[in-house]
């Protein structure tokens, strides 16, 4: 076992790091731009030089890089603090869906501007009546001439307010069991009848939206997959979701916990000397290190041609609750001042408090802790699904709350 690059990988890493050193924008004028503009400018610069979406085929704007090379690129790029989150859903989840299901014409039309950041995409899946039970969604599309008309409501749509296009799953046949009556389209977010309302989160921020569809017309050519095949197409998108949401728990880690425990005291001694504090920090480190080396094992498998499996669900399942528990405990160590979130006053500039407030969202987004546990139980351990009362029943006869 070793952690070293092969000569080819080392060569690639060097090429990437040299390009980054010469091209990563770090100047103040760039920093002064709004985040979305920063992201678009950086994405475009990468695209023009062949460093955007490097795993994609060259005709779509990539360079056909291997999965390992993508990892190396991400590692090198992450050494610079550059915004990328705006394109995560489009490039990470929707692009693989387009590659698998769209017509050649649509791939040529949409993938290059997705890679360049010229067009941003969002994902319109969840609904007020369908979250964990996604296939219970009610937004419907009805045939109208050679096109379709969409009516209904989506919710928790990240980035809808700055997106140009979105992918949407809708019900096209309510008379068959729920998974069989769905179809999958892409829509123009600027089309008449699309109304976007921001949702104010408990953090006070607004990262996602409600999106209302009122008689929104889409062409039949905007359909991905057959009519009634929407569930299978959705799975392509969802399979890529866990990977996209993966490692966002970085800010709070055992090293930060150590640093806090070195700063505060318990009964006149540094908290880091307290055995209960040490036990907590050790347990968090065990989780972080376990995830890190599980990732190394996945990478090794990936480099040998294996596909990422459901075992990758543990990243979020471990990481998000850990972040919440750690934030909570570190605030306890700070005592009454643990409640201070003011950047100028708070220990660690308030990141602990922000992590605590953000953690509930991470435990829910992209599959709740409970859904993740189900995925592991069913797809890794092979345990049976719970009996489903809606199984085999036409959707319009399923009892609703």
């Amino acid at each position, binding site marked *: *076992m*070793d*952690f*070293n*690059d092969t000569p080819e*990988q*080392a060569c690639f*890493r060097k090429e990437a790091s040299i390009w980054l050193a010469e091209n990563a924008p770090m100047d103040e004028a760039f920093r002064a731009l709004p985040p979305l503009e920063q992201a678009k400018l950086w994405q475009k610069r990468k695209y023009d030089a062949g460093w955007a979406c490097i795993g994609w085929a060259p005709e779509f704007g990539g360079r056909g890089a291997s999965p*390992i090379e993508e*990892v*190396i690129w991400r*590692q090198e790029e992450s050494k610079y603090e550059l915004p990328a989150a705006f394109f995560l859903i489009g490039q990470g989840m929707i692009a693989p869906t387009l590659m698998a299901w769209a017509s050649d014409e649509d791939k040529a039309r949409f993938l290059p501007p997705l890679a360049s950041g010229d067009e941003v995409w969002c994902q319109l899946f969840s609904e007020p009546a369908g979250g964990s039970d996604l296939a219970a969604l009610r937004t419907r599309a009805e045939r109208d001439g050679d096109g379709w008309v969409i009516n209904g409501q989506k919710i928790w749509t990240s980035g809808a307010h700055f997106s140009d296009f979105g992918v949407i799953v809708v019900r096209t046949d309510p008379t068959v069991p729920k998974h069989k009556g769905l179809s999958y389209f892409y829509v123009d977010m600027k089309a008449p009848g699309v109304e976007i309302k921001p949702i104010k989160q408990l953090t006070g921020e607004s990262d996602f939206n409600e999106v209302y569809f009122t008689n929104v017309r889409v062409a039949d050519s905007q359909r991905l997959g057959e009519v009634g095949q929407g569930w299978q197409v959705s799975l392509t998108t969802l399979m890529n979701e866990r990977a996209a949401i993966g490692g966002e728990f970085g800010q709070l880690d*055992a*090293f930060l916990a*150590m640093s806090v425990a070195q700063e505060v005291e318990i009964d006149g001694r540094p908290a*880091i000397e307290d*055995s209960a504090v*040490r*036990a907590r*920090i*050790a*347990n968090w*480190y*065990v*989780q972080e*290190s*376990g*995830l*890190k*080396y*599980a990732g*190394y*094992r996945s*990478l*090794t*498998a990936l*480099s*040998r041609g294996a596909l990422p499996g459901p*075992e990758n669900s*543990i990243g979020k*399942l*471990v990481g998000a609750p850990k972040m919440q528990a750690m934030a909570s405990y570190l605030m306890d160590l700070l005592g009454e001042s643990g409640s201070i979130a003011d950047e100028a006053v708070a220990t660690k500039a308030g990141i602990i408090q922000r992590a605590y407030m953000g953690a509930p969202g991470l435990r829910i987004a992209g599959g709740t802790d*409970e859904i*993740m*546990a*189900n995925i*592991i*139980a*069913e797809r*890794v*351990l*092979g*345990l*049976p*699904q*719970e*009996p489903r009362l809606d199984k085999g029943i036409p959707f319009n006869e399923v009892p609703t709350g």
Partner: protein
Amino acid sequence: MNFEFSDEQQLLREQARGFLTEHCPTSVVRAVLDGSQDWDAKLWQKVAEMGWTATVIPEAYGGLGLSYYELAIIAEEMGRSAAPLPFSSSVYLASEAIQRFGTESQKSTWLPKLASGECIATVAMAERAGRLALEQLETRRDGSSLTGNKVPVADAVIANVAIVLARSEAGLEACLVPMAQKGVSIEPVLTLDNSRGHSAMALNGAEAQVLGDRALQEDEWLRLLDGAAVLFAWEQLGVAESALTQARDYALHRFAFGRAIGSYQAIKHKLASVYVKNTLARSNAYYGVWALAESSDELPLAAATARVAAIQASTFAAEENIQTHGGMGFTWEFDCHFYYRRAKLLSLAIGSEAVWQDRLVSALADQSVAAAGEPHGL
């Protein structure tokens, strides 16, 4: 990035698993636990013939000179089968101590016999309840004579020689004590897991040789325990995996209220939690064996991390395995208690969870001072 065992090592795993499935089914563990025998001498002989006791002993001393990667694989399979053997005492601890600290003459006397399995060695550390404090050991060496009481000592009844941790005027010493002598008396004690015999060892002027003819720095002994901790972690991981497999299989076949209990989320989420802990333990065990095999400076951190993860995974898996089985899990007849006993026994050897959590944080502090950045390429 190559964070996986080699094809040859994977082959060894298959071979070891196949061998233990055939020669160490749970009936073998049960026979020892039932008290009809002290240990499985025949199984030991077969294991020695496979060369497992010789794995990392250098060829010059009759060993195979393989790496810790191979030994880790065997350790996991030992745990998986809950083998009633003195493998951890003789291989992870005593052979390592002799190899690491012994004089040339001590090594050439003992290592070939330990490699071939004709001799068994153990290590005697604990003296009383509470955390082991190396500076407070009461066992004393005076000249070549050793006096003190050690309890519990694993595998003392069957061992030919013990490495006894003692103090003299010179400081901390590891003493080689042949068991068959007047000055040593062994009294078996009942433990949590009698498929691995333990005893009280009384030393009354026992004839002893100081390992390496010199006193040890505490740190030297702790490094030895770091290595052992990695191997214990692999064995504990094997126990954890067996417990999970057993729970999963039972949950698939046991029906309640008209369906398999494994279809209830209460059981699914429980077993998913076990899987998560096992996966973290496995990944950390990889980190541990990498650090051990490559003699990395990160060994203290890697070993403590692997050990804490393995303690947590194995005890949790074993406890929840019984819970998943309901009343049947609480019977002598079902095998669930083998893993419950073994997981806890292994977790108490060489320092329990709090000891290693403490060492983990000390290592983390050293590490964060030493290297502010990422230590690896990938």
